[in-house]
């Protein structure tokens, strides 16, 4: 009955459509009772355990690089007093959601994708459907929600660790003034910056979870297919995340006026 039309790019559109379909299904199913609390907690814990250490280790040098770069830049233009302000802004608004997203997608998403993919080829997903249990409700929703929760929490951690790293490198390595660094925090940054940061993390977590689940549930067949699916999931998520980040940042800068302007 269903005849598939084919034109250049039809395949990509179809995949995109199915991905969006899964996203909508997940949102709809999220509100269906009973909520899979145990699975949600287990998955959250699992994602935390695979992401927290790498995230911390990545965010320290990330904060340091931004602080060093800004430190020398501000010295050149004679605006040392704003070093703290600028690095806080850069870390909270951009660096921290991106670092979070990369790790959620790279560590958490790949694990979710591999898990679902191997269940699919072992026919576990089919068996679950046949037993009248929706795999989306039972498996995908808790994983996506866990990715979102952990993403938001990690984002907070990256912000703190990044700012501390920035402080350390600015004050110790570049002989910055501790007081000036801290005092300038609120010169440029404002509360909405934190909100957009957390919102970004939430959306990135959602995207990473959905893409991982989608690729995991549709592997090409056989164990090799699962490996490929994991690979693709990570790449697709990265592409999407940077694009979405761009869109969100644009909207935010348009909607929320910069401080003092």
């Amino acid at each position, binding site marked *: *009955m269903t005849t598939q039309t084919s034109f250049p790019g039809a395949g990509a559109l179809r995949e995109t459509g199915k991905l969006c379909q899964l996203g909508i299904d997940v949102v709809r199913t999220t509100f269906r009772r009973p909520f899979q609390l145990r699975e949600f907690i287990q998955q959250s814990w699992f994602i935390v355990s695979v992401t927290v250490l790498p995230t911390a280790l990545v965010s320290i040098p990330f904060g340091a690089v931004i602080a060093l770069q800004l430190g020398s830049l501000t010295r050149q233009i004679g605006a040392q007093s704003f070093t703290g302000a600028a690095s806080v802004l850069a870390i909270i608004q951009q660096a921290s959601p991106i670092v979070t997203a990369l790790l959620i997608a790279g560590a958490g998403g790949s694990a979710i994708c591999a898990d679902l993919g191997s269940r699919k080829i072992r026919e576990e997903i089919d068996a679950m459907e046949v037993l*009248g249990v929706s795999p989306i409700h039972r498996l995908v929703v808790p994983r996506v929600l866990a990715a979102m929760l952990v993403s938001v929490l990690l984002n907070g951690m990256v912000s703190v660790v990044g700012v501390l790293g920035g402080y350390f490198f600015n004050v110790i390595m570049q002989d910055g003034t501790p007081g000036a660094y801290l005092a300038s925090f609120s010169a440029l940054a404002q509360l909405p910056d934190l909100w957009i940061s957390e919102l970004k993390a939430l959306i990135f977590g959602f995207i990473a979870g959905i893409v991982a689940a989608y690729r995991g549930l549709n592997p090409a067949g056989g164990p090799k297919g699962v490996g490929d699916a994991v690979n693709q999931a990570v790449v697709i998520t990265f592409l999407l995340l940077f694009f979405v980040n761009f869109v969100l940042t644009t909207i935010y800068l348009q909607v929320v006026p910069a401080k003092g302007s």
Partner: protein
Amino acid sequence: MGVEVVVEGLTKSFGKQTIWQDVTLTLPPGEVSVMLGPSGTGKSVFLKSLVGLLKPEQGKIVINGTDLVRCSEHRLYEIRKMFGVLFQDGALFGSMNLYDNIAFPLREHTRKTEAEVRRIVLEKMEMVGLVGAEKKLPGEISGGMRKRAGLARALVLDPEIILCDEPDSGLDPVRTAYLSQLLIDLNAQIDATILIVTHNINIARTVPDNLGMLFRRELVMFGPREVLLTSDEPVVEQFLNGRRLGPIGMSEEKDTATMAAEQAHADAGHSDGSTSEDVRGIIPQIEPTPGLPFRDAVRRRKDRVMSIIHQLPYQAQQGIIESLTTEEQVRYGVHVGAPAAAPAPSPWPRQGGVL
């Protein structure tokens, strides 16, 4: 009683490749049916279509008045609760031990207390001979045990339709015989409609009430077991006897040149791979273990078959008539050696839903 599954004009293809087309058959309620077919003829695909895991392009599958091919996702999940499916490898959840695997459907769909769940799970585990393996993970046990655990899980919700995908693959002949007996006993106890997909000839000869065969993208035949077991169809004959001579080749089909060459080899005395005897013919069906209730399906089927016996091939007719007791032959007005003429009047009151 189990429910009737009506399949009409079903066609399934993957891309340009047609798996099978225009499959029409009816699984009579409460009876055991077997679908035979060489490897790669889409038997598993057929099974997955029946539970709505794959969507055929054409045709319909009607269960309880609902067409599975076109019903909503929600309705599909409701219908699936009537199914118990045994997958080829058991399809157990790798992260749970056997006990949790078998308890899974109960915990998801019923509000039973943990004590009740335990009672039912242990009962089913005993039924399939897995007592003592509750704590094992699916990765730690043999394929045969996984299969039996998969069967136990399929049975906990007392399904009305049981589908088995190659219950014999990976099992030794003895365990296969036990499993066959188990399925017949189950049918006697819960009167579920059972469909077994296999290429095991022993199962095909002894277990089912109805027998069908898929080959070359279509259903060769489907009907009472006697019809296929006495058939002269070359495909059926070759398959039942497991010989190389015939239309089935190593790949799906065989060309005439290969056939002629093989015939020449066989004529020159080269074995064609089969045992010399012809295993076609009707042998008695497995009966429920003594002490269990009589299978209602047998009586229902006898009525149904006797009402269509005049349409069946002569050999099948004779086979059926010979399997009747003298008393029954008199009751149905048929006798050995003579072709059955008109539909015999039913000696028992017909029940609703019986064909």
